[in-house]
């Protein structure tokens, strides 16, 4: 039941926040904050409970549309817990970052924000594939509104591109889901969208590959990975800061989660034969987008491309499909969630202060905003994979695991770490170092980080240090889930290898 509460609190909170605007324009943000904090507390309360035999901490299963064997089936295991905690945490941060920035139509903004979060929680917990698809799409519409209403100069184009990319590939996934359900009908005799039921289906090699591709395309568009990444830089550069935080921190992770939970376990054979291609795409994402990032002058576009690059390590880890690599992928998801969100908030904070995102116009800001500079340095260093911080643990584990699966691709991908240092430090140099010139920009509002901002940047730093210094506390949660997933596919892999 607690899962229903987790999601419905956000839905209801969103509506209340919207309506409260009529009473006082300051209420929506307060209500939104209370709602998400309440949700976060609920999530933390789940942590203590013991998982049942199947490894599920909490679950709820009710009939929904019996005609199609669709049920309202939510369940939570160690992997989902990590991701919903990330969602709750970044939800609070996103509200913090919107606190002063969103003045117009605040009620509707927080409504959309909370509904996006609710959709994401649904995605991370749904185990009925129809329900999963339902939430997958539900999180898009409010995100579309966030970009289209509160975005910057080219918001219509960016919002439309975001929506069409994800929606069209989502329909491919819908076809794949329906094919799975149909195979269940043919082989077992009834329609079902239940994850556990669908795991048992067997398909011919060729058809399995096609069905798997439907999922793969949908997930790698969201992740994103080359060649489906081109919506991301536009969406990020146009979205308001809170939108970027949600997008980079959480929404991208739903794609990775989908790969781990659905794409590989449902289609082990096809995934095994597809792995070299997926890993190649990952390597291309890592290197190509790192290179492209270096060519950007718009700071948000740059961070967006680095996101694609870092997500490449996640794909790499997932398709290596061993314990270390998967743990690395999960750690990267969490750590990148924090570091990318923080970088987007810094970029958004800068844009809010000086009304430009163009780096050539900036320079020498260290003297003007020393606190911001230090914070930016911290998160840049985190993003480039400095040992002691979360991103390092994730990317290191991912590469370590991938090395066992495919040496050449791993070796090539590892160069991504070098490129990451180049662009990360380059950003710091462009913005904060050098002579301070104020010719091109209006710096009258260029003030240093205030207490509220320091608070949430501090919280995120703490998170990254914790992940880097004591990753075991996170790994312990996801480990049983990943081992279970691996065991389920191992026998099938063994059979394939023998043949």
């Amino acid at each position, binding site marked *: 039941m607690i899962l229903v509460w987790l999601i419905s609190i956000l839905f209801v909170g969103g509506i209340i926040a919207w309506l409260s605007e009529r009473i006082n324009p300051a209420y929506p943000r307060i209500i939104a904050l209370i709602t998400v904090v309440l949700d976060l507390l609920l999530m933390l309360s789940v942590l203590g409970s013991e998982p049942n035999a199947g490894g599920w901490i909490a679950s709820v299963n009710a*009939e*929904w*549309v*019996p*005609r*199609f064997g669709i049920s309202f089936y939510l369940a939570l295991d160690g992997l989902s817990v990590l991701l919903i905690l990330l969602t709750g945490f970044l939800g609070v941060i996103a509200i913090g970052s919107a606190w002063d920035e969103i003045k117009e*139509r605040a009620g509707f903004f927080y409504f959309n924000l909370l509904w996006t979060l609710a959709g994401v929680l649904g995605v991370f917990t749904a185990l009925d594939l*129809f329900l999963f*698809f*339902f939430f997958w*799409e*539900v999180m*898009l*519409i409010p995100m*579309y*509104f966030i970009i*289209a*209403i509160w975005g910057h100069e080219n918001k*219509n184009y960016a*919002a*439309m591109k975001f*929506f*069409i990319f994800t*929606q*069209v590939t989502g*329909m*491919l996934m*819908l*076809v794949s889901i*329906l*094919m799975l*359900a*149909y195979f269940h009908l043919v082989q077992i005799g009834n329609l079902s969208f239940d994850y556990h039921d669908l795991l048992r289906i067997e398909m011919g090699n060729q058809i399995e590959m096609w069905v798997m591709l439907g999922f793969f395309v949908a997930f790698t568009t969201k992740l994103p990975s080359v060649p489906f990444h081109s919506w991301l830089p536009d969406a990020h550069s146009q979205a308001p800061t809170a939108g970027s935080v949600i997008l980079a921190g959480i929404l991208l992770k739903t794609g990775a989660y989908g790969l781990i939970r659905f794409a590989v376990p449902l289609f082990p054979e096809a995934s095994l034969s597809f792995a070299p291609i997926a890993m190649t795409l990952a390597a291309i994402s890592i290197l190509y987008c790192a290179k492209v990032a270096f060519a950007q002058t718009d700071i948000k576009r740059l961070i967006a491309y680095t996101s694609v690059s870092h997500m490449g390590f996640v794909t790499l880890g997932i398709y290596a499909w061993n314990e270390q690599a998967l743990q690395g992928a999960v750690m990267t998801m969490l750590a990148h969630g924090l570091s990318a969100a923080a970088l987007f908030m810094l970029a958004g904070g800068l844009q809010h202060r000086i009304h430009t995102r163009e780096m050539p116009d900036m320079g020498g800001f260290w003297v003007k905003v020393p606190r911001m500079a230090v914070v930016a340095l911290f998160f840049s260093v985190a993003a480039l994979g400095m040992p002691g911080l979360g991103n390092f643990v994730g990317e290191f584990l991912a590469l370590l695991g991938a090395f066992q699966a495919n040496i050449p691709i791993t070796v090539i991908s590892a160069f991504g770490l070098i490129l990451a240092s180049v662009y990360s430090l380059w950003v710091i140099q462009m913005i904060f170092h050098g002579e301070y010139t104020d010719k091109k920009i209006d710096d009258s509002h260029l003030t240093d980080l205030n207490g509220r901002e320091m608070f949430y940047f501090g919280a995120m730093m703490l998170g990254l240090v914790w992940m880097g210094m004591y990753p075991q506390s996170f790994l312990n949660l996801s480990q049983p889930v990943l081992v279970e997933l691996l065991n389920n596919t191992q026998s099938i892999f063994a059979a394939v290898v023998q043949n």
Partner: protein
Amino acid sequence: MITTLADLLPLMPLLITTATTIVAMIVIGIRRNYAVTAGITIAGLLIASLVAVSMISTTNSQVTPLLIVDQYSLFFTVLICVTAMLITIFSFPYLANLDDSKEEYYLLLSIATIGAIVMVSSNHFVSTILGLETLSMSLYGMVAYPVHSKLADKFPLEASVKYLVLSAAASGILLFGMALIYAQTGTLEFSSIVNVTKETPGLGTGFAIVALIMVFIGIAFKLSLAPFHMWTPDVYEGSPLPATTYLATIGKSAMFVVLLRFIVTTEALSFDSIILVISLVAIVSILAGNLLALLQNSLKRILAYSSIAHMGYLLIALVASYYVQGAISVEAVTFYLFAYMVMSIGAFGVISIVSSSEKEFDDIDDYQGLFWRNPWLALVFTGMLLSLAGIPLTVGFIGKFYLFFAGVEAGLWTLLVVLILGSGIGLYYYLRVVYRMLLSPKGGERFKSGGSQYMGAHGVLAFVLALLLILGVYPTPLVSIIETISLNIL
């Protein structure tokens, strides 16, 4: 065969609608009163739909060879009567200021409803034609209704004549096809036509195929499927909004029910060439409808082109009916028609509530910033547009889910790819309208839609929006009803 009074009982909804027309006519003869005429029409249609609802679980009979009253036809009878009633409610404020006699409009509307009820109950070519012509004749009148008005905003006469001429031509083709089938089989009953596809003693298979294709073309014209769609945008644009709504909802769905019954009963799809023709028409309709809608600035025209695409989507489920076991594709068609009617009433309803016979606001510019000027209407409109685009939380998504499901089960991969492409393109023009509503308002006329005479219309919008969301989240009740009634078709 002697027909007793008891045999006519299943025709109660039809008889009540007819009685409504007569009563309204007499009342107009005695004393013209706009509100009373509209009230009689609404009450009559309401009673007819309630009676149909009460009959639905027990009735299943063939009344004369012409009409079949089974659960399926009653389901659509209810749907049509309710839709007609809702359109009457929208028409009331729309026509209130017309500088001409306005009571007769409601006569036309209820006569058209009679035709539609006959169509959904028909499994015989004679009743199909009777129903179709009753419906079309009244629609010509409804489309041209404000023709004597000096203030008419659009071009009702042009629309009506265009519709009349092209529609008559299509009826001609349809009749020719029927005549060919009659020459072949000596019967006009759908169920006896099965022979035309199984064995062709007379003039050979080529003959039968031509006959079936001519019937299909006649119907495709009325459904505005490409390449027979040319009339749609002009007629939609030129007609007064309530007439457009009627044409788009009841006109389309009654015709589609006939097509469905005809195709399923006669097993016309056992000819490969018929499947090919229908598939091609589906593909062309989806692509043409969606692509041409991209270029429009008039909401009426956008919805016209999008209706072409939606009819194309429906054909996919129709083709699937040949391949799949069980009634799933019939259910898909039924659910989608239901969903399509809900969303169309809502979408046209929003436009007609802000318009009147003197001034129609159908340009996309008129709706800029509607979210901030009139949040309620914008909310309804957004819901309808997202539903038309097939986004979850709305009934349109469940409808599209059905179509995908039927397509996957039938293995119609090409058509599914076209469906995905079409939906992708469709997103663009639906979102374009949504986006315009989100922008900051810029001057211009404010909509008048607050008066007491609009109460009913706002109530209808609320009802339709509730239906859209509730069935989008929890479709189970409707799904199980449709599952039961669809068995009647097979």
